[in-house]
């Protein structure tokens, strides 16, 4: 009894000590969370109910920004562009990252060289990516079209034709999958060798080993990369902004480009905030739907 009663106050002193230091050391993030996340999110919601051009103080107009968007043709064009992009770029990006990782994980020579080549584009400054691709894809003297013209083949209007430009962005997107690829590669290397050996002994070919071992074992990471790709896809800004400025004929005017234009070119901070909140809610819904669906296709190893 005496031991217990004398230990309790000491323990709680320890707990108080831990709480004090825990909060103290976490305080940069805690304060930053309030300043740079909580407050901006709440004020963004408030601004979305106002008309605000930075010159005059915000003027409360209720749901007007949201209601106006329902009759805004530009907005629906942007939604179409963005959905096209998200629905295609996420699975295509994740699939290409996965296939590159599978290729790298097979028995090959110079693996680290290939890995470096596939990975590197994802860490190059986006301004360099856009400058270089703009030149490679240039209709007259780009590496590809100048070659085509020399062969007297028709040129490809990569960046100047509204129907070609989105697939062009997809190609560049596939070129920048290094991050997801490396995550897949780490996952593939974690798959226990015994599983493959056992399957081989049972007479499974490489194709069925891929379907029944590799894919299920990687499915949690496929989900992770899909979620990240969806979130990133909805926010796609720098590449279309730099490479095409939303064109030609506004075919690459994506949600984030439209939002940026409204905020910083037209100074419609209220409308931009309403757009941001719509984006936020759409992303949350998509993410939740993806996680819901994952129960059916993601395999979790029980350990």
């Amino acid at each position: 009894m005496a031991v217990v009663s004398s230990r309790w106050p000491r323990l709680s002193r320890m707990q108080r000590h831990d709480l004090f230091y825990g909060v103290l050391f976490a305080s940069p993030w805690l304060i930053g969370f309030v300043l740079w996340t909580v407050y901006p999110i709440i004020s963004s919601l408030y601004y979305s109910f106002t008309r605000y051009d930075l010159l005059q103080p915000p003027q409360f107009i209720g749901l007007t920004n949201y209601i106006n968007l329902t009759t805004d043709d530009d907005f629906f064009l942007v939604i179409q562009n963005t959905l096209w992009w998200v629905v295609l770029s996420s699975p295509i990006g994740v699939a290409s990252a996965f296939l590159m990782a599978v290729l790298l994980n097979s028995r090959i020579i110079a693996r680290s060289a290939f890995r470096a080549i596939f990975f590197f584009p994802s860490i190059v400054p986006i301004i360099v990516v856009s400058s270089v691709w703009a030149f490679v894809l240039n209709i007259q003297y780009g590496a590809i079209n100048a070659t085509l013209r020399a062969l007297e083949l028709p040129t490809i209007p990569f960046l100047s034709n509204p129907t070609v430009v989105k697939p062009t962005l997809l190609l560049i997107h596939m070129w920048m999958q290094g991050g997801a690829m490396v995550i897949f590669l780490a996952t593939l290397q974690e798959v226990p060798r015994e599983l493959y050996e056992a399957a081989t002994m049972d007479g499974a070919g490489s194709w069925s080993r891929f379907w029944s071992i590799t894919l299920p074992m990687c499915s949690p990471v496929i989900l992770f990369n899909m979620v990240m790709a969806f979130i990133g896809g909805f926010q796609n800004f720098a590449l279309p902004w730099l490479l095409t400025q939303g064109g030609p004929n506004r075919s690459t005017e994506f949600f984030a480009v439209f939002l940026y234009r409204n905020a910083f070119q037209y100074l419609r901070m209220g409308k931009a905030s309403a757009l941001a909140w719509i984006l936020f809610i759409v992303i949350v819904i998509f993410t939740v739907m993806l996680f819901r669906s994952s129960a059916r296709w993601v395999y979790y190893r029980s350990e």
Partner: protein
Amino acid sequence: MAAEALTGDTTTRRRRAIHPAEIAGTIVRYILLIGLALTFLLPFYWMASSAMKDDNQVFTVPPRWIPNPAYVGNFLSAWQVQDFNLFTFNTVVKYAIPSTIGTVLSSALVAYSFSRIRWPGRDLLFAICLATMMIPFQVRLVPLFIIFKDLDWINTYLPLVVPAFFGNAFFIFMLRQFFRSIPTELSEAAVIDGANEFQVLVRIILPLARPALTVVALFAFMDAWNDYLGPLIYINNEPEWTLALAIQRMGRAMTEVGASANAYPYLMAVSTIVTMPILLIFFFAQRSFIEGISLSGLKG
């Protein structure tokens, strides 16, 4: 046992190697790998080779793949088209270095609290910290701009540097994972010797976490070096530009009427120079780099 396994392994391998399907598979695999690698490298080759051409070699059909003559001096001339020394100074000294210092210090401190001190509410707050990574930046874009405008911080580097001192969710996560792998006995021994939490962090944890801290510092530096959106929003004044903003202007000026001679080669030359530090960092820290990124997926 081992010898048996070994011979068993080699016989199966030898038997499989004879299989024509296996050979075909290997050939297809290498064709894919080499084809992909060449495609991936093409833009970089085009960038670096165009950087050494002049207008006569840039505007040709068929394209000239090897510059002849190669104008190596283009790198120097291109650097003087605008005041790129100033923009490098801005990018590195005013932005990348201070934001890297802030990110590493604050993220390490917070990660220590989230991994090595037990306190009520810790795990919930860490979960919230992770969840903030899912919030689209656009939601905070407008209010943050307004905050910094009211503080009169537009056209300064404060909006880009000050928030770095409040921790970065991804780096907090990375460092927390690393700190958790350090045995508790080490810090307990230090506590018995009379060290306080701060001393434990500085004397025990940080020296052991050097590799992880290096990766965080490299990532933070690269984030700043590569950043386009941040400077685009907060920096309008030309003398304050970063390299990214200066290159953007170079690209836009090129398409305008009366663009100067060698505009394409110069743009490619500057792009090559700006890519070099990233290539060097990647070259020397490839392994820790790739491990750092892999970590983010392992929790998925």
